[in-house]
């Protein structure tokens, strides 16, 4: 019942908020990712670490998994909402967990 034209109510709501030019992270618990070139990344609204090594760090977020691949990756700081990673980042990957989509 919630589906119309193949889109869920959540997706339609997200589109509507997007039309208003309002940051989506203000309404949904979407992760906010701030890359500092290839030397570091700040993630807000994360849901924990899935994998941690010096070449790959995978972070859980709402409806997706963020995967950072690179060299000498280190967890610089972490708390309930924020996480800072430093090192040489070579690849950032977003994996949709809900629909199983993959974006990179």
């Amino acid at each position, binding site marked *: 019942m919630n589906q119309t034209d193949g889109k869920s109510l959540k997706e339609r709501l997200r589109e509507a908020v997007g039309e208003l030019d309002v940051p989506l992270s203000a309404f949904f618990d979407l992760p906010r990712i701030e890359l500092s070139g290839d030397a570091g990344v700040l993630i807000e609204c994360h849901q924990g*670490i899935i*994998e941690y090594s010096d070449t790959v760090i995978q972070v859980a977020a709402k409806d997706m998994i963020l995967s950072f691949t690179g060299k000498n990756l*280190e*967890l*610089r*700081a972490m*708390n*309930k909402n924020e996480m800072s990673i430093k090192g040489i980042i070579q690849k950032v990957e977003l994996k949709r967990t809900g629909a199983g989509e993959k974006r990179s």
Partner: protein
Amino acid sequence: MILGMIHFVRGWVRLKITSPGMERFLNLCAARNIDFWDVRRVSPDTILATVSVRGFFELHPFARRTMSRIRVIRKRGAPFLVRRYRRRWGLWAGALLCAAAIWAATGFVWTIDVTGCETISEAELRVQLAECGLEPGVALKSIRPDRIKNEIMSVRDDLSFFAVNLKGTKAEVIVSERENDARILLKTEPCDIVSDKTGVLSKVEVYEGNKLVKEGQTIHAGDKIASGIMRSSQGDVWQVHARAQAEVRTWYTLETVMDLSLRAPRKTGAKRTRMALIIGERRLNLYLVENAPFTWYDKTVKKKSLELPGGFELPVCLVCETLEETQPEEVAVVEEKCSSLLEERLREAFVRSAPEAQIVSTNFVFQMENGMARGILNLECLELTGVEAALTP
């Protein structure tokens, strides 16, 4: 740096954590708001991480749940220092006294900065400020900037603006001097040009206005050089802002006398030294020497102020006074030396009184009579004259 200071105050512990489920352990810590930083993975099951002291005591339940082993490598910060020195009462009393002294010191004026003094004397202004109650060492609460402003403006008519701003323990005094009335005259306002010197005109250039004098003519101070009232051959009259420049040849005679029976002090070698500490406006004598230990003496005062890096002067200074006994003795005066001394004095006096005068020639006459030396200096100068004055018919 600020973050480092916060961490120091809160205290931190560097840990070596060995866990089979490291990610789970980190997530549990994050979920309980246990902040950690500088995480470094040293082996697949070991990390080095830094946590706050508060966080360290909350870690243990999660360590048990995830079968992790925690080992303290290093601990730093204020909580550990406090624990180490908790029985040293003298140290705490000193720190408390120091904090109290700093807090008390912030209630007083430490320095006064005066800006804007161009021709008026800054020292004179500082004396007047002290009379109004603004000087280093006075309580900030007792200072009323508006009252000081009113008092200073009522006694000085050479200031057009005066303000006192209190910035922390520093009082900033800003003054602006009143401009000379002659300079205020608008460039479009009709005026005359009058001479402010007496002499013989050597050059006259009138750029605007009616020329009233000519070269070679004797002119007195107050005489008009150019008039701002212009008349045409048809009888029309109009007024202009006269502009002219004139050069006059002037002569001056300066005279001075000096007693030839000079008595100069000679040091006997006896001396006393006394020291005092001045805090704010209070003087603390650190000596038992009487006020005048010798009949004749020279007094040398050396002041050493305490200064913080950056030139911030504290209102505390150490004064060292040296009193050296002297004996007055007759001094034989050499004629040549006396002559050159008098001539130098007269020249200096003239340069002080007329700094812009160009000296063309001088003639110095020296005489010695009745135990007195007399010096007469005649000067011939070239000077610029001509100032703006209100228009007169």
